[in-house]
């Protein structure tokens, strides 16, 4: 996420220059994202902790099954990925709700606004965290975790004298990683954009308790629709948004999300109207959040 020119802001060469340095938009964006990572360390600590806990549990299970000479476990690679990505998703929700609310609550918005960084850059950098940084980070951590699992299970199996052949029967590691990346880029990076857009909008607007403001309105809309029209289109819409862009016919309860994703080719994915409607809604939410940040004062 950094280009070489970005990484040397404090070099002696630059500080001796008396003429104002040219600060490009991408550099302002880079530093804005970096400052989010400084402030919200849970962005990388939480997925790392999830991976560590999972590996510990996995290792325990592996040792126990090897000790009792059981058949090797069906190695839960997908479960590892789901756990880490789920953690990332939850962190993303809480991050987004606090992103534009916290700076108003602690009055630091006055400090940030004293610098030549536009509201648009600030809001986009805060959107980049759940939409780009968290998914990519979760992906990297998930792949490393899966690789460690592969090594651990190979070692334990070899040590216990059981056949290693069963491991090879699984989907190849490379293919699995590729599927995971595809899932991350499509679902977390694009499909969920309106969700994060909504959370950022609430975060920019809420006079207090952004969490309640984010979750109460959908609940009320669902209730009103249910009572007044005896329908649940809104709930269906939310479900569609949360479960991903998979045709409902193939949403068998048994299948897991990533396997279903493999059924959806990029062409199919990008031709789904739901994707484009979602992105348009996200753009509207974000434009409103940018405008609100300009008008809102410290709480």
């Amino acid at each position: 996420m950094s280009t070489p020119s970005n990484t040397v802001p404090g070099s002696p060469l630059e500080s001796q220059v008396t003429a104002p340095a040219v600060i490009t938009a991408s550099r302002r964006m880079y530093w804005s994202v970096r400052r989010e990572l400084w402030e919200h360390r849970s962005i990388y600590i939480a997925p790392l902790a999830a991976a560590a806990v999972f590996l510990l549990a996995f290792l325990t299970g592996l040792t126990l099954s090897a000790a009792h000479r059981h058949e090797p476990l069906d190695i839960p690679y997908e479960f590892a990925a789901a756990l880490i990505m789920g953690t990332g998703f939850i962190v993303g929700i809480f991050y987004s709700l606090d992103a534009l609310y916290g700076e108003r609550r602690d009055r630091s918005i006055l400090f940030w606004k004293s610098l030549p960084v536009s509201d648009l850059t600030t809001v986009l950098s805060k959107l980049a965290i759940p939409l780009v940084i968290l998914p990519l980070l979760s992906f990297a951590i998930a792949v490393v975790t899966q690789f460690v699992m592969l090594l651990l299970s190979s070692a334990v199996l070899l040590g216990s004298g059981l056949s290693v052949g069963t491991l090879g029967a699984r989907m190849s590691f490379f293919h699995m990683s590729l599927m995971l990346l595809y899932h991350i880029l499509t679902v977390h990076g694009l499909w969920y954009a309106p969700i994060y857009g909504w959370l950022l909008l609430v975060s920019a607007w809420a006079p207090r308790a952004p969490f309640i403001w984010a979750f109460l309105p959908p609940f009320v809309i669902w209730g009103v629709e249910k009572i007044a029209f005896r329908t649940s289109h809104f709930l269906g819409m939310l479900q569609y948004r949360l479960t991903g862009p998979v045709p409902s016919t193939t949403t068998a309860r048994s299948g897991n999300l990533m396997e279903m994703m493999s059924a959806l080719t990029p062409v199919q994915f990008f031709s789904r109207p739901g994707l484009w409607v979602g992105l348009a809604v996200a753009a509207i939410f974000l434009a409103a959040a940018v405008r609100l940040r300009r008008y809102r004062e410290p709480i």
Partner: protein
Amino acid sequence: MGCIEARGLRKAFGTTIAVDGINVRVEEGRILGLIGPNGAGKTTALNAILGLTSYEGELRVLGRDPWTEREKLMRDACFIADVAVLPRWMRVWQALDYFAGVHPRFDRAKAEGFLAKTTIGRASKVRELSKGMVAQLHLALVMAIDAKLLVLDEPTLGLDILYRKQFYDSLLNDYFDRSRTIVVTTHQVEEIQDVLTDVMFINRGRIVFDCSMEEFESRYLEVTVNPEQIAAARALKPIHERQVFGRSILLFDRVERQQLAALGDVRTPSIADLFVAVLSNQSGAAQGGAR
């Protein structure tokens, strides 16, 4: 072109009028003190100047409209809102990195130089610093920016006298160079009297007094009047009279010094005394009008 030019600047919050059509022109190279009671509209006026709030009327700051061009304005202007707004989680090196990263006029070496004179460590978090040290840090960051306009809104609120004095000393010695403009609001008026080049009083959203310090010193005189001469002194139409330890202190506008010297001890009044005089006359006039 003035550094700040406002004509008919107005801002209302609902039915409350915070700034009521003020006209201001601040030239380059001035240090303006904006003095007013709580709720007078100082902060609202400054927020409008800094692009933090929308407004009615005309306003140009460094030739820009602050509301629509805040980002560009902040390359040439900077402000300290008050000592409590530095993000508490931030470490000193992060603040330096970030400023160097986003501000085209930030001189990191200069900021490091200012910090070297303090006891602030690079790895310290803002939350670990005392209030005085946070003010020092913020000032070091801001003074390292080669800005044309610096706005300080109660920058020394809650600091002890040592830090307050140090704050204004370094501002004058290490920063101000006649090509910059500084606008400052504070309640500790007497501490900045020698610092200012201009003074402006604001009350109920209006500018009620505006003059340069040279004019202030030549126009206004305060006399501790000898008791036997009080009638003669009052005949010269003082703009304000107060009692201290049983003696009358009278404030005069445009009265010859020699004339006053005959009545008692003459000295230049403090801004605070003139402020009280101007404001009490104003409220007296308002009551008179109501009657």
